[in-house]
């Protein structure tokens, strides 16, 4: 990871003249106040904020432990966005200086570090978290200190907080349409499989309700433990269930083991179609396109998404972190989050949390993102996003096979779905 940082530094320097050094100082040095501060002032010499006047933001991801596998890429995207923004003058003329903390894949550490960032480092806002566990652990802290968290990952919904902006998809922007798509495709027998934690369990409750409403059959429901390496018994259960599609909510490493072991048994997407909610381009890379090709996934963004913004984004990302790296939905969402915050600050003409929140509550904060324009909903602080169903191709990229014509309104509690009444939380 350090290596990457240095590599990034070298590339950035050669490519983006001065501000590269800001990036390098920051990304190689993860930013200690001094280095990034001084670097950024030299960086933007000539730009409006020559004074070296900066605004501090926090990055809070797992850089060690089991979750680092997923979260590193997201962090890289946030750093990239910060570097770009600094490169063209920063936020309200202020250079962004980021303070980075390691969540160590332990929600309690996330809580500690969140408090440290907000109260000790006095950051204006924090970009971070991946698992629902870490988000739930820091949520009350952001509320008590009245700070703002930008959460870049799709999640199970049933939540909204004044102090969190959810840039990833709500269930009705990923899970529900994906299931609808499968229903329309005429799949009859569904097998639900996920890692044994809260997102899959909640997601599956939603899916079961939706399928029940459509009068379709769930022929099996299985949960693998977090670091399970042998899936043979789950695969046997799939075989005997006679399902024709698998709804896969496994996370990270579980996916690798599962699909490799499906391939061991000569199964392809023709035998068992899968619809995955946690497989993005990175996972495809680690599992192998030869194994995954033809399988379905559901996101709001793919590296192949055809917009000029995306072209630029993918180019910048690869230049910064190496040609072998790929962009994915969470990566893009994390990248958007930084720009959305910038937009909010500019609308509020302040980086103060309350002003930023006021600006967000107008419901007019939006960003022309790689996935297309996304807008923050003024009430539940989720984003209006396009839904895209994709199919893995043999280059290991994901082709869009279906997309909503327009952005979908976020509905974290699935209030607009009659069948969801049972999965909605207790009114309190």
């Amino acid at each position, binding site marked *: 990871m350090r290596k990457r940082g240095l590599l990034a530094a070298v590339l950035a320097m050669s490519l983006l003249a001065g501000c590269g050094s800001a990036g390098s100082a920051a990304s190689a040095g993860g930013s200690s106040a001094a280095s990034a501060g001084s670097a950024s002032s030299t960086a933007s010499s000539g730009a409006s904020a020559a004074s070296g006047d900066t605004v501090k933001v926090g990055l809070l991801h797992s850089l060690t432990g089991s979750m680092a*596998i997923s979260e590193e890429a997201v962090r890289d995207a946030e750093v990239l966005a910060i570097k770009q923004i600094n490169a063209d003058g920063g936020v309200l003329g202020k250079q962004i200086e980021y303070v980075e903390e390691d969540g160590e894949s332990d929600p309690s550490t996330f809580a500690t570090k969140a408090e440290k960032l907000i109260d000790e480092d006095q950051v204006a806002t924090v970009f971070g978290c991946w698992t629902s566990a870490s988000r739930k652990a820091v949520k009350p802290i952001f509320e008590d200190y009245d700070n703002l968290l930008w959460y870049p990952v799709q999640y199970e919904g049933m939540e909204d907080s004044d102090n969190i902006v959810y840039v990833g998809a709500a269930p009705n922007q990923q899970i529900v349409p994906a299931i609808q798509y499968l229903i329309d495709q005429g799949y009859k027998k569904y097998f639900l499989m996920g890692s044994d934690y809260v997102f899959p369990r909640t997601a599956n409750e939603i899916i079961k309700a939706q399928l029940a409403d459509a009068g379709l059959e769930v022929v099996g429901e299985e949960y*693998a433990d977090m670091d399970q*390496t*042998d899936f043979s018994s789950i695969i046997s259960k799939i075989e005997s269930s006679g399902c024709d599609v698998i709804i896969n909510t496994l996370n990270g490493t579980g996916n690798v083991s599962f699909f490799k072991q499906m391939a*061991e048994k000569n199964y392809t997407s023709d035998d068992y179609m899968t619809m995955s909610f946690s497989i993005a381009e990175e996972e495809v890379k*680690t599992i192998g396109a030869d194994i995954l090709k033809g399988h379905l996934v559901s996101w709001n963004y793919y590296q192949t998404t055809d917009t000029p913004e995306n072209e630029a984004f993918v180019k910048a990302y690869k230049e910064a972190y190496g040609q072998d790296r790929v962009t994915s939905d969470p990566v893009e969402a994390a990248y958007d989050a930084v720009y959305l915050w910038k937009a909010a600050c500019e609308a509020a003409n302040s980086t103060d949390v309350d002003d930023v929140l006021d600006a967000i509550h107008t419901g007019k904060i939006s960003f022309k993102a790689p996935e297309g324009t996304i807008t923050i909903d003024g009430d539940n602080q989720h984003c209006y996003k396009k839904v895209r169903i994709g199919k893995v191709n043999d280059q290991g990229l994901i082709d869009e096979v279906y997309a909503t014509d327009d952005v979908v309104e976020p509905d974290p509690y699935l209030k607009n779905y009659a069948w969801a009444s049972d999965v909605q939380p207790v009114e309190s």
Partner: protein
Amino acid sequence: MSTIITTMFNGLSLSSIILLASIGLIITFGLMKVINMAHGEFLMIGAYVTYLVQLFFQNFLPAAVFDLYYPVALVVSFAVTFLLGCVLEKLVISHLYGREVDSLLATWGISLILMQLARTLFGTQGVNVQAPGFLTGGLSIGSVTFSYNRIFIICLVIASLIIVSAVLNKSSFGKQMRAVIDNRPIAQSMGINSRRIDCLTFGFGSALAGLAGCSLALLGSIDSHLGQNYIVQCFITVVLGGVGNLAGVVIGSLIVGFSTIWVQFYTSSNIANAIVMVIIIAFLQVKPEGIFSRKSRALDD
């Protein structure tokens, strides 16, 4: 019928995986009484070496010979982990003989370092090893499919078992090794270089882990956490089987493997983990000497 066969095969292959992962421990833990918590990281190293060898074949050799990367990787990862094992022995383990608990803790520190090293070198994201042609897919008989890879692992386990017992019982190195383990001073007085033997023994144990890692690479993700997924099961298996006893560990792995598969058949994996542990504890109640049988005249060693 087919479900029964499949279940049996699953049980067998899971057992073989566990056994393969723990076979190195039979040497380091069973014979040397060193609790190597970094054993899992040696699995990880084996897997990463496999990845590197594959990379080399992809980039520098014609596609025709690509499949050969795997046998090469087996050899290379054995060699690499052997050397690393020797280094580790010289630097750390050699200070820890007779201090079992301390060896457990110190090697855990080592495993922290090795994991971070993996992150530093290969990044946090997992890397992919593509199975060689002759190990992709499986052999279908009727409705049942036996994956070539699983069959290969079973063979590899049997092979390693034979190697180990041969080394221990036939080779002069094995004889010296057991001499040193039985009675260090006498062995030394007979002119055996015990420090060298220790080093080689530990290296051998680690190398077996590397070998295992090489085949685990085909089963799942290769990342800095690979080792952590196996370590607990490995140790409990060795303890269950009766430390230092090849046959015992084989039995142990079979118990763990089959009971896991069997319980998973009725519940979820997590419940299975819990239940299997309970089963093992219960078993140890009936047969604690499955854990240790010591015939030492010294009252406390």
